[in-house]
């Protein structure tokens, strides 16, 4: 087991920088998701940790020791790739025992350790099968087993579930989570799927445009995004500017209580998640009025677009009774409104 730490890491290909000034750590036994859209540099970071990409600057440390100078085969790190990439010329057991064979373990020890990890990963009885004789999910399990059998200090998973279909993917998410909990192997896994990151990991690091925007627990990133970009990434659709007056946020379409509000005169940006917006027929306290302009049924919920003065507000509600043209009370529960303080330079401008 081990702790992984990246310090001021800069990565790139040719003249093209990919990641700059990246610092974060994964604690011993922790499962961290490196989340971001395609092209954000997630896989490049993973490949740098594995030793396939040389950092331009910064350090990579495992258990406090720098590993930048070590080739992949000498790092206490094993990477599981997006595709299972099992060796087609070996059977399942030989695939899983490959790394142990490379380390020179005797056949008996290899057999015992392979059997144990196959039991752990639910592959018992499939050892003699050829790679093409097992399903996609079993292939990914075999790839995971092949990595786990080496007992690495750090396990790297590069979107290992992205090639699976939706049902299998769900099963595998639970499976990987369970295996990580049992083995307590320090794990850094890359995904572009926010729900996968939120449900599988202890902590999430969000990478946008080659920069780390926020690291925290899944709840922190989801409910307490550090900035509007993070909020947008997690499905934030309602953003509105306002002015703080006596603890209330005054917007173009109404004012409401804002417990997080900074002092009077500030002009922050506020957001509320669509599922936190409440719709009602009766106009009660703290509500503003909006007219339904569009609705979309999405299975478990209905998405409703409302025009509140000149602003469009999106609500995601379990009720599907709303119709276009209806005038409704739109409620923003104060505890669900997230306020992003005005950046200092903007604040200075607005004061002038």
């Amino acid at each position: 087991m081990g702790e992984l730490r990246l310090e001021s890491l800069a990565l790139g290909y040719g003249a093209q920088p990919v990641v700059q000034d990246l610092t974060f750590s994964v604690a011993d036994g922790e499962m961290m998701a490196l989340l971001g859209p395609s092209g954000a540099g997630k896989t490049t970071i993973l490949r740098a940790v594995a030793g396939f990409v040389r950092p331009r600057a910064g350090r990579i440390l495992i258990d406090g020791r720098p590993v930048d100078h070590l080739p992949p085969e000498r790092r206490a790190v094993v990477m599981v790739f997006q595709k299972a990439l099992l060796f087609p010329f070996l059977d399942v057991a030989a695939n899983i025992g490959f790394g142990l064979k490379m380390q020179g373990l005797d056949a008996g020890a290899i057999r015992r350790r392979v059997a144990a990890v196959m039991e752990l990963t639910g592959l018992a009885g499939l050892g003699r099968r050829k790679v093409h004789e097992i399903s996609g999910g079993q292939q990914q399990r075999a790839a995971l087993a092949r990595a786990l059998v080496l007992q690495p200090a750090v396990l790297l998973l590069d979107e290992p579930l992205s090639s699976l279909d939706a049902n299998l993917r769900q099963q595998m998410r639970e499976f990987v989570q369970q295996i990580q909990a049992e083995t307590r192997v320090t794990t850094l896994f890359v995904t572009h799927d926010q729900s996968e990151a939120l449900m599988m990991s202890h902590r999430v690091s969000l990478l946008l445009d080659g920069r780390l925007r926020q690291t925290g627990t899944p709840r922190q990133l989801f409910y307490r995004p550090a900035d509007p970009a993070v909020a947008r990434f997690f499905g934030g659709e309602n953003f509105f500017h306002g002015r703080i007056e006596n603890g209330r946020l005054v917007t173009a379409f109404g004012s409401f209580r804002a417990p997080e509000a900074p002092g009077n005169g500030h002009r922050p940006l506020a957001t509320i998640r669509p599922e936190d917006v409440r719709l009602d027929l009766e106009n009660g306290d703290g509500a503003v009025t909006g007219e339904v302009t569009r609705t979309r049924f999405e299975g478990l919920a209905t998405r409703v677009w409302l025009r509140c003065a000149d602003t469009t507000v999106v609500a995601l509600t379990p009720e599907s009774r709303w119709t276009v043209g209806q005038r409704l009370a739109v409620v923003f529960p104060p505890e669900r409104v997230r306020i992003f303080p005005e950046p200092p330079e903007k604040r200075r401008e607005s004061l002038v």
Partner: protein
Amino acid sequence: MVSGQINGRDVRTRAVGWNPRLAVLLAPALAVMLLLFGGGLALGALQALGHLPGAGMAELTADHFTRVLLDPDFPTSLGLTFHIALTSTVIAAILSVALALALTRWAVSSRLVHFVLQVPLTVPHLVVAVSMLFLLAPAGLIARLAAGAGLIASPGEFPLLVNDRWAFGILLVYVWKEIPFITLMVLSVLQNAGGELLEVGRTLKAGAWQRFRFILLPVIAPSLAAACLIVFAFTFGAFEVPYLLGRTYPMSLPVWAYRSYMDVDLAARPEGIAIGLIIALVVMGTVALSVWLNRLARGRETGR
């Protein structure tokens, strides 16, 4: 009906049985194969068995095969033919694997590589053989240049590299001609799957030699074996290069077959064809042996 699972889903496929439409569609290709190849082979076999009415021979007999097989020169010719085919194939295979690995590692632009490698493929063997003769003969270009540079006293001192005992000139032609073919076959496999599996190997702690032995070789083995078999079968049966660059005695089997077939004495023709059929049998036997060895090796690899 065959059933199995792909990505956890049940999949059923119907085995292809007798299908008249399919037979009609395949008929033109099968007819060409059967008439031209099968017919030629049958006619050849008939002539090798002595059925040559034009030369006054009508009786079927195995005497021509027996005469060839019991000829004291046969083992020598067979050995020489094996030496030429096997040595050139092995050398070309080793150099091709090294070249393919180097090209993959240096990530050389694939279009340029393919162009450079395709050049020798387009040159006929006969042209290469004649070029080698001009280059390597005792009075050839290299001998004269060496003499001119003072490396040897006269062109006559230049080592014998054509019509020589070890068939050096013949090997050189075949190696030069076959390297591009084998390299392209191996390169396509390496470019498709080799790189990713090598990275897996590195992350699984395999060193450079282990990656070559336990990943690269098994990955390229099927293509390499197929390419080598094609090269072996071709070089074992080809006559023009040994005819031009080989010694007059002993002859390789294809040269012997050609000479017998072209002999002014028509009675020698059945022997020539018999040698041709023996060459075909040896090649088929080699293919069968290599397939068996390949299966054995795979079984060992997977522990079956």
